[in-house]
Each structure stands twice: as C-alpha cells, then as structure tokens.
C-alpha cells in the first residue's frame, strides 16, 4: 500500500460463504479447545431421565457461575481446576457369590477423551448408597482399591485408595478419593484396570456391596455411579493456522 489516501476504516461487511463459515467455526472451536463441530446427540427414551453425572456437573457449573458473580467460596477442587470431566461407568463386574469371599464390585471408565497436557488435581468416585436393613443399624467400612495387575492363577494386585465409614441406614452419595489412580491412568491409558470396591462390617466380614445399599449400573440413571476428574491445563490449546 502507501499510494493514495487511505479509505476510512469500516468493519468488513462481506458475508462469509458456507465453507468459510464452517472453517471459521472450526477454528474458533480449536481456540476454545473444544471438540470438533457440534454433533446432534441421539436421544433414546432412556436418556429422558436425567443421568447422575450431568446433574452433578450442572450443580458444579452453578457453583462456579455463582462463585464468579459473588466472589463466594467454591468447592475446594474447583478453585485449582481449569477443566472438570465426568466419566460414565463403562463396565461393572461383580464378585458377590455367597461361597466366594471377599465380595467386591469393579468399575471401569474410558479416560481416553482427556485432552493431552492436562494435570490431575483431584479425582473422585461417586456412588449412591441407599439405606440398608441388612444388617440393621451397623457400621460399614467401604474401601476402594485400584487394580494394579491381574493374574490368571491368583488374586489381582491392588493399591489402596480410600476408606469411608458409614452406617447401614445412611442414604447419600458416597465420595471416594481416587486421585492417585487417575494420575497413573493419565500417564498410561493402557494401565487402566479399574477400581474395586469392598464393603466390610465392623467385625471384619465381607459384604455384598449391593446388599449394603450401594447402587451400580442397574440403578435409575440419576443414581448410577460415576467418576469426576479435576484437571489443570498445563498449556494453552495450540491454534492451527488456516
């Protein structure tokens, strides 16, 4: 340039073409670090009932939004996190046959969708407990382990994660700290062998988690177990030039 007077600056008025608009939208999504273009989600009849993970995440969102507005306190993990992801339980295995002790329940999650470069700040496993009358009014110990290695001829190697003590009549969401396991899973996705949950009575007897009132995949959608990961971004998303 440099020849002749410069025209007065105006915003570009040209309408974008379909392809240009699509490219631009894709670029904006990339800047936001969001996955590709919107895709219409299937809505089967079962999904009409709200699921536990989205409900919990919506509560978190409101906590964040209100915290932003009021400057009020946030949930402890939230303050240190840029990203919170919920994971639906993919596979559930039970070992609750009467003749086989101890009883346990195993849960698996698909963590492959976690964006690269995220650092785990905390992770929780959430399972709903209904009041149980079997045994009546007893103290129960619920422990969570990570399955570290499986063996064909003997019991799997386990790593202790968390222990919660509650009454058999309690009804609430039970929150177990699984940060250590998710940290390892993030480093090596192939090493995700699941989480194993045990219930013991005060006198040390193993108990079927289902009988203790802990709900699994067969529960109503709003009470199904899920996992929540809190992450901190280690870098900004890279923007690919068009």
């Amino acid at each position, binding site marked *: 340039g*440099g020849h002749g007077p410069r025209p007065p600056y105006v915003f570009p008025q040209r309408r974008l073409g379909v392809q240009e608009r699509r490219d631009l939208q894709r670029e904006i999504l990339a800047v936001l670090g969001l996955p*590709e273009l919107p895709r219409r989600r299937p809505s089967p009849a079962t999904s009409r009932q709200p699921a536990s993970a989205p409900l919990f*995440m919506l509560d978190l969102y409101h906590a964040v939004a209100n915290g932003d507005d009021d400057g009020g306190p946030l949930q402890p993990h939230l303050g240190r996190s840029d990203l919170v992801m*919920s994971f*639906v339980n993919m596979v559930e295995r039970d070992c609750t046959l009467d003749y086989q002790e101890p009883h346990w329940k195993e849960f698996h999650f698909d963590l492959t969708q976690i964006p690269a470069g995220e650092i785990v700040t905390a992770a929780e496993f959430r399972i709903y407990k209904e009041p149980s009358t079997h045994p009546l009014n007893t103290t129960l110990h619920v422990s969570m382990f990570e399955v570290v290695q499986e063996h064909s001829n003997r019991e799997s190697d386990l790593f202790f994660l968390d222990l919660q003590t509650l009454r058999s009549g309690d009804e609430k969401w039970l929150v177990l700290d699984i940060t250590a396991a998710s940290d390892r899973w993030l480093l090596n996705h192939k090493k995700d062998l699941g989480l194993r949950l045990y219930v013991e009575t005060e006198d040390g007897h193993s108990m079927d988690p289902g009988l203790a009132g802990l709900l699994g995949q067969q529960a109503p959608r709003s009470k199904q177990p899920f996992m929540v990961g809190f992450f901190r971004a280690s870098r900004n998303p890279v923007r690919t030039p068009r």
Partner: protein
Amino acid sequence: VVRPLRKKRQLNKTIQMQHLNQHLGIFDDGHGSRGRDVCRRHELYVSFRDLGWLDWVIAPQGYSAYYCEGECNYPLGHRMNSTNHATMQALIHLMKPEVVPKVCCVPTELSAISVLYYDRSNNVILRKEHNMVVQACGCH
C-alpha cells in the same frame, strides 16, 4: 449477536464504562468532544443458541462478551499502559496517516467464563475458558 439494549440500561452502562475508561485514562480531555471515536467497550452478546451449539453446550446458553471499538488518540493519559510500539505507531501515523493506521483499540483486560458441554463419548465437561469477556478497552 448485538442485542439492542433498553435505553435506560444502555445509559447506565455507558456511564459505568465512562467511569471505567476514565480510570484507565482512555478519555483524553483534548478529545473529549469526539465521543464517537473514543476507544470504548460495546455490548456483544454471544448466543450459543443462535450458533446452533446447544446440541452439545449444556450451559450457558450465551454470555456477554463485549467488544472494543474506537480510536486511540494521542497523547494518552499518563495512566495509560501503552507499549513503546503503540507510541511509535501513533507517531508514524501522525507523519504518514495514509500509510500507517492509528493504533487500534483493543481489550486490555479480559475475564473467563465457564462452559459445560458434552464430549464425543457423552462425558460431561466443565471447562474454564480464559480471556472470553472484555472487562476494559484501551490501547496497548
């Protein structure tokens, strides 16, 4: 989407922005009469609904992003956080206005929003998106 505001609200907003801009030294006394050209923040509502993103964005349905428009007139107020580059560009513009444009009016302070959305596996994600809302405009 630029939504027309009700007159009273718009007036209040303008007054609030004038206070903010004055604090930042954007309004210069020498150019106070050229209100239209002064670098200031304007209303811009980004609607995820209008973008057709509500298929996967759960919340919010939209947010006030704002944008900056106007010219950065020199000399700047002494509180203006101008870069050396901006100062030099302003100087060259005075000498050769047809070659080099005036320094741009840009966001100088931005804040984050939180977005709740589904990923490809129908997991739900809550992400803090930084630098999404213009808090103040100025020249850098």
